[in-house]
């Protein structure tokens, strides 16, 4: 009798948002494999029309709870680009620093709470509380660091309130920044311990390479999450973020409420591994050392290594964050009242979300009311690549037990750290 494999995962667990996996195979031959996105679309680009520039950040932050600082920053940068607003060096440094808090919070949430159970053979972090109490406590301490970090600069953990076009509503005190510095320094041993744990489990990550185009921000002269141009591993071209539409090339497919993207190939990937592949030469010492311990090198194209790249980036943001804090504390925090006069214009803001490059475009009328918006989300950019990975990976594992195939496909989706509710917002507007 022919051996049949029939897998239907309705709403993959331990990811943000709703995604389905379908696979049919017969006699070791994959007949059909599909990554589906049935998430309810929320239409943010339509909803911001008519709203004041000073309310945009409050609205679009709600695209994603896990990357709310990232969405706020992309919106604010887009507004500043549209209205020709320059910000001070202090504002720039504080924003980069606040954004780092979200990178570590999100990466630890992903590696610690969502992926670790797979590597330790459990269905969630809850059994790990008993079986691996020290690991769970380390994860909790690092997660709290990310949250306190965002709270000190952004006013609260999720959906920041101090970030606004032109600067900050309220600046963190030097005392709070010194407190943050102490917490970051104390976190380094925890981070090393977590890296050791992940390293010990790295052989559980499937061995699967697929040559892939990676896209991220790059420049100026450090490992960037906030400034820079769009770059790809396929070319030497640097594309200004204002021209992001010619990179993302969005299109609609029947299996997804989120659009798919492609640039030089049928699909591309964004996220920690993409940033690593494009910017690894700029890593800080501990981050570079962490990558070396894992044997992670530029050119890596195993999607499961995105989890390792996230651990490397945790070291990166703590080390570079400490440098920025030293600079800020040396010059001292100076009061900078912000007054923005709205004006007509159009602009783009791009930053790296923990899960990859994010683009926001806005147009405003002369009173500062939004007339058009276009938002392109990292997970949206990864969906096509997840499908292409499925098509290459499924035949390699099809001889295994059905439950194991299912788990491996779920792990593949999780490795992208998808933020699916984010990704179902996109727009098809021609800007004139």
């Amino acid at each position, binding site marked *: 009798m022919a051996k049949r494999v029939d897998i239907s995962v309705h709403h993959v667990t331990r990811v*943000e948002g709703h995604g389905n996996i379908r696979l049919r195979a017969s006699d070791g031959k994959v007949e059909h494999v599909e990554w589906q996105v049935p998430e309810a679309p929320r239409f943010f680009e339509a909803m911001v029309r008519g709203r004041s520039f000073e309310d945009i950040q*409050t609205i679009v932050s709600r695209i994603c709870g896990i990357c709310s600082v990232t969405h706020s920053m992309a919106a604010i940068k887009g507004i500043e680009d549209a209205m020709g607003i320059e910000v001070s060096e202090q504002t720039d440094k504080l924003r980069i620093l606040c954004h780092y808090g979200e990178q570590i919070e999100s990466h630890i949430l992903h590696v610690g709470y969502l992926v670790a159970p797979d590597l330790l053979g459990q269905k969630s972090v809850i059994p790990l509380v008993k079986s691996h109490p020290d690991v769970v406590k380390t994860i909790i301490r690092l*997660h709290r660091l990310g949250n306190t970090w965002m709270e000190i600069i952004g006013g609260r953990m*999720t959906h920041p309130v101090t970030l606004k076009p032109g600067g900050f509503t309220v600046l963190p005190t030097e005392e709070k920044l010194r407190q943050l510095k102490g917490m970051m320094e104390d976190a380094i041993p925890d981070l090393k311990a977590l890296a050791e744990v992940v390293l010990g489990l790295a052989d559980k990550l499937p061995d699967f390479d697929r040559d892939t185009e990676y896209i991220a921000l790059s420049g100026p002269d450090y490992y960037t999450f906030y400034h820079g141009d769009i770059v790809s591993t396929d070319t030497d071209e640097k594309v200004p973020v204002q021209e992001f539409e010619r990179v993302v090339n969005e299109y609609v497919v029947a299996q997804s409420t989120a659009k798919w993207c492609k640039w030089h190939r049928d699909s591309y990937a964004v996220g920690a591994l993409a940033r690593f592949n494009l910017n690894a030469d700029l890593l800080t010492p501990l981050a570079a050392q962490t990558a070396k311990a894992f044997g992670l090198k530029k050119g890596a194209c195993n999607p499961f290594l995105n989890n390792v790249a996230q651990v490397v980036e945790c070291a990166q943001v703590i080390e570079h964050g400490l440098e920025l804090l030293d600079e800020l504390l040396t010059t001292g925090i100076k009061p900078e009242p912000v007054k923005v006069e709205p004006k007509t214009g159009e602009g783009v803001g791009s930053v790296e979300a923990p899960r990859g490059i994010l683009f926001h475009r806005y147009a405003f009328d002369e009173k500062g009311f939004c007339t058009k918006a276009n938002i392109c989300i990292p997970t949206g950019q990864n969906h096509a690549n997840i499908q292409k990975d499925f098509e290459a990976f499924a035949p390699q594992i099809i001889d295994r037990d059905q439950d194991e195939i299912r788990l491996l496909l779920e792990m593949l989706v999780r490795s992208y750290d998808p933020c699916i509710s984010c990704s179902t917002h996109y727009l098809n507007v021609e800007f004139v």
Partner: protein
Amino acid sequence: MAKLKTAIFDFACCEGCQLQIYNMEEEILDLLTLVHPVEWREAMSDQSEDYDVAIIEGSVTRREDEKRLKEIREKAKILIALGACATIGGVNKIKNHFEMEEVKACVYGDDARRPHLNTYPTKAVGEIVKVNYMVHGCPIDGEEFATIVRCLAMGKEPKIPNYPVCVECKMKENVCRFEYGEICLGPITRAGCGAKCPSSGMWCFGCRGFVDNPNVNAAKDVMDQYGKTIDDLSGKMLLFGTEQEQ
């Protein structure tokens, strides 16, 4: 005491309120002595149809989601709406100020007619099924959530503030946002957040919904005193206050 079998389900939202549950850090371990989570898709691979408490995050924006919500309500003894999207519709309701066909065309262009992209005007959870308790806010406050869960486990009625944010803001000795020439929804919005936004230099945008009987006359007096109009106010109320007008 038997642990409360609890399931968490998400609908249209940013999942930031579930994130506040993670953000309780060690305190989750404490809550796990009272609660037995049987399904929580964002955190666990376990699934169950047998639960006492269903926690619903997010709004309903599609017919198929309405059906799913009703099925959950039938199985649960207690249903909790978690966060602004569930309690009042949240920012998802800004959509209701537009024609649905136009909203779809704006976002999906020529593909808007495809069936899998369908949508209808956003509804809060209480517009479809009976809600027993509400955890307000965008996002929720982890402490308040923990208090409500503890009360349920001990059979007590949780006390949710029914006075405006201004009360908590005054206690923090903040300068009123109206003094800065801003519009603030503090006078009509339910407290319980500790006036977090005004304390961080931001006006209140009403994410906890309005108090049960807002003192509209007093709010109007404040508006008059600072030379603000109803138009100024409604532009801000629209963010979280759509269809709550009384």
